[in-house]
């Protein structure tokens, strides 16, 4: 079947099977940033935005994305670059496999204009597992990024 979506601001038509999941579709259509870290929607690596909300693309039916706006990290390149600078300053980037997913969740948070404490932020990001950093440097970097954004 064919579906029409908007990916990173561009209209795309995807030729898919009915049971295809969005992570697989996006990978197939060369959005390299979309990677998978688990098969149980538990790690956060494959996070993308659908209509501005972070979702696990490994468990999102592509068919359901008909008419929706999809954002991968390629679509927020400048924001990702700025967040990366803060990660760099805090020494928060290690293997980086989880970073694009985090960038998208953080971007969604920024768009929501909610104010966040460190504790809220830790709660908000609980679905983004990271095995390298110990998290604290990430949290600091993200706080700085969000602080700059205000």
């Amino acid at each position, binding site marked *: 079947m064919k579906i029409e979506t908007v990916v990173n601001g561009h209209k795309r038509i995807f030729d898919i099977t009915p049971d295809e999941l969005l992570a697989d579709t996006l990978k197939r259509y060369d*959005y*390299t*940033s*979309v*990677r*998978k*870290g*688990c*098969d*149980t929607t*538990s*790690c956060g*690596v494959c996070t993308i935005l659908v209509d501005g909300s972070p979702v696990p693309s490994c468990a999102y039916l592509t068919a359901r994305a008909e008419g929706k706006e999809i954002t*991968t*990290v*390629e679509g927020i*390149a400048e924001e*990702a*670059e700025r*967040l*990366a*600078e803060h*990660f*760099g*300053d*805090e*020494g*928060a*980037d*290690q*293997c*980086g*496999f*989880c*970073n*694009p997913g985090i*960038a998208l969740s953080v971007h969604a948070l920024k768009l929501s204009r909610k104010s966040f404490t460190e504790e809220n932020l*830790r*709660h908000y*990001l*609980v679905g*983004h*597992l*990271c*095995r*390298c*950093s*110990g*998290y*604290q*440097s*990430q*949290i600091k970097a993200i706080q700085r990024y969000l602080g700059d954004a205000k």
Partner: protein
Amino acid sequence: MKKTKTVNQKVRSIDGKGIMMGRAAYTDDFAPKAALVIKVLRSPHAFARIKRIDKSKAEALPGVEIVLTHEDFPRNPFTRAGQGYPEPSPHDKFALDDHVRYVGDEIACVAAHDEKTAEAALKLIEVDYEVKEPVLDFEKAKGNESVIHAEESIHEMFPIGFDPEKNVAAAYHMEVDDVEKRLSESEVTIESSFYTQAQAHTALEPHTVNARIDYLNRLVIYSSTQTPFHVRRILSQALEIPLNRIRVIKPRVGGGFGGKQAIHGEMLAAMVTMKTKKPSRLTYTRKEVFEATYSRHPMRIDMRLGATKDGRITAIDCYGLSDTGAYGEHALTVFMVTGSKVLPLYNKVDAVRFHGDIVYTNRMSSGAFRGYGAVQGNYALESAIDMLAEKLGMDPLALRQKNMIAEGESSPIFEIMGEGTAGTAMNMESCKLDYCVKRGMELIGYKDKYPRQEIGKNKLRSVGMAIAMQGSGIPYIDMGAATIKLNDDGFYNLLVGATDIGQGSDTILAQIAAEELGVDVEKMVVYSSDTDLTPFDAGAYASSTTYVSGNAVWKAAKTMKERLIAEAARSLGVEPEDIEFQGTSFKNKKDDEELTLSDLSNTLFYNDDQKQLSVTESYYGTKSPPPFMAGFVEIEIDKETGEYEVIDYVSVVDCGVTINPKLAQGQIEGGVVQGLGMAMTEDVKIAANGKLITADFLNYKIPTGKDIRKLTTEFAESYEKSGPYGAKSVGEIGIDTPPAAIANAVYNALGVRIKSLPVTPEKILSALKEKNGKHHMMGMRSHDGRNL
């Protein structure tokens, strides 16, 4: 130490932006689109012989390109462990075998044009098994009726105590002085057994490989590996492909922690591509990562300590039993590190013994894992030290301060124990352990908080601590090399075999070279870990990169500097000693004439006595200066349920000079949280039939950002003369202290000693019940007038 501009300064990682922006970087990003998808048929039995295997139906399925079974591979035993050659691990594994030795062991693989077809084909492979009695309890493995490895050609490369008929993969024994005698003479002794569990690495990037044949008709493998050069060697030997026909490229790796320090899918992908001449790709599912890669070696450690009444530790006896699982990767070396990077912490003993067996069982293989045996040993020893302190009536910190190793001192263990072989004698040229302990006490508020404080009806806060040491590479065994190449316009390529697996080694190696050559890090373009293009490096393991590979880079930079000065002198018509090297320019000291690096390099390429300046240097350690650390934890614990939370984890670390302070902090904090996972929640569990229960992130629980409230990390001022710019390594030391620190904090809170990891609320509660029950009984008995 002289002032540095780049080293020990705040420098952002060189690759952070591209990674955050999602650019193609990891192994699977480079798989050709048309690559065959490989799926692996895995054993449902813990131990069985394959009586018959029929792949005809699977091969007949449209879209299936090839199906491989043990009949398709040369029968060459090898070890999957990526370590120095000849390896101290037994050659006990075949690419595919007619026996399966754990649930998840490979039986066959299918390569098909898409994933769905490959999965469908797996179901069509018919296998008849002769199911055998598995050995799942490692304490019953040695001498068990069921022999896990009875195949003929398996062997050890040199004596490691390999005795497969008894299910023993390796064995070790060493003793200084007479431990039994010293213990019997000791005024105070304690003894206790400790159990450590299997821990999963859980790097976020699953194990991934892809293969192709290039236009030179050579096999090119991309792999998420920590040891590309070892992978090339092992593939060549096992598959009988000449070494010069293989190229292994390690792209960005999404975390390793030791889990990628051994062969995973490379054998299968290589064989599929060799046979079909088509590109192939194999990415493990998360379940496969959990079920069919490696875990930390579970161990039982029996610890006996002896001391004088005034608290001088006189003897340590440590017996270990280690479970290597189905195959013996890193069996002996991990076990030896349990002694060699733990017991020297208390170097003033009269006698010390370390001995034990590493046994086969029918569970997934154990392998390398950050800490590499030291975590297990540290948990046992540092728990035992607190027990001894209590028996002596001493503050556990005072006991440590009185007995622990100090700068300028040594331990006989360094000379006796290496990794698989004898060790190397060394003195502690840099050891700020004393400072680490004192500073840690201040940061955690030890004096006010030890041992505990009531903070409400059901809650207590307490502190606990442990000290640790690790190493910096393996002396006389592991080598790293670096090439620095000058380009026109005056920038450099730094080519290193060293393997960045996310720890930031590309960045810190660029910093070392940039510092010596006086340029900005941006002028040092790094390319790492490609067996065709970069010089050799043993790989990212054994806390070796900063120290070993870093020294190689430093040497190369120094040599390049000499070459540059010679060329500048020639160009300016003066002697080299007349040249003042300023990084981006050269000054003739006699007349202040300047020549820029850019002009010099352009001239060298295009105009005058043209040549390519390129230098390669190598380094191997002649010792392994240990980083040290004191770890302190404050926990809040619920007396009624045993649940507890980490309030703060204080790490004070001596790793010499930090090349990149923020990345070093990242190594410590990442290690600490991984260690806290091991201490608190992580536990690889198998069912009675050997099947893995914790096969996904829903059931195997690693810490999240919400679980550890605060990390406080500092570095001691320290300078290691033999290290690059005074640095020692820092990759593993962070993981060592949390298990003992947590167990000690729980004891300080509630008076119960948890002797098996992880320290779960349920174990705490059950120990409390037992303790209170005993107290209750003691109360009754004393009522009877008995003297207790």
